[in-house]
């Protein structure tokens, strides 16, 4: 067994920095994610600042943050420029998806919880595990560096569709058609924007080496490299998780005795291992297009940007969308399945009642993952692919609502008739269930292809993705942090601060994201710098302002969470082995667990959800518990897989 191969670390460097211990690596992922979470939040607030007050000069902000001057230039009246705006939402999405939610769920919780919950001493491949964290650092560096290269970070959206993202031009070739194009499309009859000063455009143009997307010159190349590294990291992690779960379970821990958290992470790891190679290939193809001049995504006749012509191609821009969404749709499940598992376990521990329908829960996860591979085309209904393909993708997409509904009903049946303890963790988990319903239902609108014609690429989809990724996944992550913090650091978080943070975030997140459905129903396209250019969108400007106010307040409320984390880390009350009186294996060992996790290898006798057992002490039997009680069904001894 591999975990015998590394001894307990001796010094600080091997214990906390280049650690082979899955628990330290998990915590490294947790804190790296926290830094990017703050960055991603700031970028989102920049987006909301612009949309709430589109023509507001930001002179006060400039006094506080003078380094923003190149992006909020004085000849734009100290406003956010449209190019800077495209960068804000591009990098917000990139950071939150690839550097926050994926590393937190897969990296932090996956690393920390899998060996502990299955009774292993460590991961199957501890060195690969360490590498999976440290290979993220080139990724971090390239991502951060992209903000500082000529032209800044990319502005072609996190989806990086060619040819906007992939065409680059020799910067020495002038682009004489450009000024004419800008003036021709200026909204002259609105008169709200200052006249474009030629000096500014010269300045901006000199920073570009791409005529297609603002700020997508070098920044786009750095972005591609950053994502390739982060993909390799996830790939290493997923191989390790699959191997660990299949080979390193404690005696008696059959697959169908694993807690749902482990199931969620297991299914996610399989999804990642199968889907990530496709994204990596696509990223390499775009990188080659941009750097050595291949034409994977350039159509045969080439393209004209003003008076500049790219030369002939031979590729197909739509190919990127297929490859990209073949990964990025499963990625949506990669970012929700672990949270579903965690929320199930947290709910059960808080409700003191067995999980309702363990097997249907496991099978619906597998169902979501399986169907997840054949629904990527629903991002492309209006892309120009054969509409008959759209029909097939619609049917598959509507089918995927089914396992999601089954999960929802099982959560409700778990809560019904239980004895709920309201903690910061369980409240966030309950909110996950409630908000996942909204996020799931709004998805059905997009699945119906004719309705999607209208709401595709509007704020309706922005609302949907945030109900799934913020109000569901992120609330699952909050719940997970409150719940497993005592195990990770041996101290519990402050419950009162946790509840205040929960109430405010719950209210403000709904205030931020629910009105976006209404913007979408009105037809408000996403990624618009200033919707007031359009007459038909002017009635929703008050809603945009309301959303921005809620978003900014919600950003401030997160300070409570950060304070709680860092205060509790050092001053929180000491936690025992099992503060929540939970059944799964990680609570059997001391908090925080020692190197090697368990004093003696646990022997697993039953599933993790034996609650409500009237005769047992505490009304529960842990997974290793031997309790002689009358009337308790005898659980057959499982064999080690």
């Amino acid at each position: 067994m591999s975990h015998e191969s590394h001894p307990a670390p001796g010094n600080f460097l091997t214990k906390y920095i280049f650690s082979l211990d899955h628990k330290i690596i998990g915590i490294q992922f947790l804190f790296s994610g926290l830094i990017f979470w703050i960055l991603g939040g700031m970028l989102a607030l920049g987006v909301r600042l612009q949309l709430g007050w589109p023509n507001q000069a930001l002179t006060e902000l400039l006094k506080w943050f003078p380094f923003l001057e190149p992006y909020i230039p004085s000849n734009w009246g100290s406003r956010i420029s449209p190019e800077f705006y495209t960068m804000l939402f591009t990098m917000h999405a990139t950071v939150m998806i690839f550097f926050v939610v994926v590393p937190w769920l897969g990296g932090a919780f996956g690393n920390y919880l899998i060996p502990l919950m299955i009774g292993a001493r460590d991961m199957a491949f501890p060195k690969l595990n360490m590498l999976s964290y440290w290979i993220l650092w080139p990724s971090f560096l390239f991502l951060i560096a992209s903000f500082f290269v000529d032209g800044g970070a990319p502005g072609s959206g996190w989806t990086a569709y060619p040819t906007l993202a992939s065409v680059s031009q020799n910067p020495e070739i002038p682009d004489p058609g450009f000024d004419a194009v800008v003036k021709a499309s200026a909204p002259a009859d609105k008169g709200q924007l200052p006249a474009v000063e030629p000096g500014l455009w010269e300045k901006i143009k000199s920073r570009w080496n791409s005529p297609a997307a603002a700020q997508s010159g070098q920044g786009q190349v750095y972005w591609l490299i950053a994502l390739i590294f982060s993909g390799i990291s996830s790939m290493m992690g997923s191989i390790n998780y699959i191997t660990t779960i299949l080979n390193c379970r404690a005696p008696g821990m059959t697959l169908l005795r694993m807690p749902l958290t482990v199931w969620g992470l297991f299914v996610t790891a399989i999804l990642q291992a199968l889907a990530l190679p496709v994204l990596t290939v696509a990223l390499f193809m775009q990188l080659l297009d941009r750097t050595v001049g291949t034409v994977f995504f350039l159509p045969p006749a080439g393209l004209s940007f003003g008076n500049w012509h790219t030369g002939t191609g031979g590729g197909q821009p739509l190919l990127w969308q297929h490859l990209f969404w073949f990964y990025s749709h499963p990625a949506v499940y990669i970012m929700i399945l672990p949270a579903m598992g965690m929320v199930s376990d947290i709910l059960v521990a808080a409700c003191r009642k067995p999980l309702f329908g363990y097997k249907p829960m496991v099978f619906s996860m597998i169902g979501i993952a399986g169907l997840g591979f054949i629904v990527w085309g629903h991002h492309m209904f209006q892309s120009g692919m054969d509409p008959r393909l759209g029909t097939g993708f619609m049917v598959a997409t509507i089918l995927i609502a089914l396992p999601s509904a089954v999960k929802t009903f099982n959560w409700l049946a778990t809560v019904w008739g239980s004895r709920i303890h309201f903690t910061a963790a369980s409240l966030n988990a309950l909110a996950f269930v409630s908000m996942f319903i909204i996020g799931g239902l709004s998805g059905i609108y997009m699945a119906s292809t004719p309705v999607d014609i209208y709401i595709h690429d509007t704020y309706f989809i922005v609302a949907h993705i945030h109900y799934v990724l913020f109000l569901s996944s992120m609330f699952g992550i909050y719940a997970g942090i409150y719940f497993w913090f005592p195990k990770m650091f041996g101290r519990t978080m402050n419950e009162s601060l946790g509840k205040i943070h929960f109430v405010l975030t719950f209210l403000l997140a709904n205030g931020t994201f629910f009105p976006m459905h209404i913007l979408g129903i009105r037809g408000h396209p996403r990624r618009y710098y200033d919707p007031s250019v359009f007459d038909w969108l002017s009635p929703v400007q008050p809603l945009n302002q309301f959303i921005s106010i809620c978003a900014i307040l919600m950003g401030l409320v997160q300070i409570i969470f950060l304070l709680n984390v860092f205060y509790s880390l050092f001053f929180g009350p000491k936690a025992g082995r099992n503060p929540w009186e939970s059944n799964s294996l990680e609570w059997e060992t001391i908090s925080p667990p020692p190197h090697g996790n368990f004093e003696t290898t646990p022997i697993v006798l039953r599933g993790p959800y034996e609650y409500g057992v009237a005769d047992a002490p505490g009304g529960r039997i842990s997974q290793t518990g031997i309790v002689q009680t009358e009337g308790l069904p005898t659980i057959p001894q499982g064999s080690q897989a």
Partner: protein
Amino acid sequence: MHRFWSLLFAAVNLSCLGMLVVAYARPELGWWLPEAASTQAPKIDGLFYLISVLCGLFFVLTQGILIVAIWKFPSTTPGTAKPIHGSLGLEIGWTLAPVAGLLVITGASLPVWKDTKYQGLQANFPIANAEPAPAADQVILVTARQWDWHLRYATAPLQAEGIREWAEEGTPSDLMVADELHVWKGAKVTLLLRTTDVIHSFFIPVLRLKQDTLPGKTIPMRFEASVSNVRFDPSQGRLVSGENNSSWEIACAELCGGNHYRMRGKLFVHPDRKSYEAWLNHAQRQARSRTLATSSPSSSMQKDASKP
């Protein structure tokens, strides 16, 4: 305290639902679907309402159960919970019930999708059983570029099989207009969508019409307007308001660079072919008297049309 949590969940969910109800019930706020001005639009809106009703039922049922459970079952409830691990009957029940709803949605969606996007597949996807291109009253080539729409109107009738060639070659009598789409009520319009540079998306909210333009491809899009908003008055030589005094806009719905938000066009639906042709003749005369490269032939009319 548990009642507070139950009420919090109830308040949040009711506010969300309430916001939708207010937006629907008070159209004067301008927070709901814009006018429906094509033959497809009411069908798409109908589907939207059908899904809303089914999702609304599911929403009320599931959130209701959750809110009541939080109210009824706090940890202070006497006794321990019953150790129920599941129920096959319930699982089958709540698997089949959503299946029924989802089948209804799928069944209702398929014909609308087919109507909207399947016509004329043969031209674009040469597969044996594809349907042939239907006859069109109007053929317009829309070329998107950073950051405006260029429209080329066919002024002479076109045969269905001649459309491809016309799109490539054009004819000298074609009319070029920037950012303005003129059609007449009831005309079967075929748009051919192209782009010279990046992906754009031609979005007309009132027609519930959206189609990406794809570099290297010509994508057909068909529609029929059902309400008119302008009329051409030959005596004044300008557009005046029609049966519906609305200004209808065209937008870009796919990120295409910094000025993505500025790709604003206008839709003019004439009441009949006569009014459209009067405008067309007028615009052609104007175009002949100017240099195409430096001016948009109808920019003066755009200002006139905005007057009531």
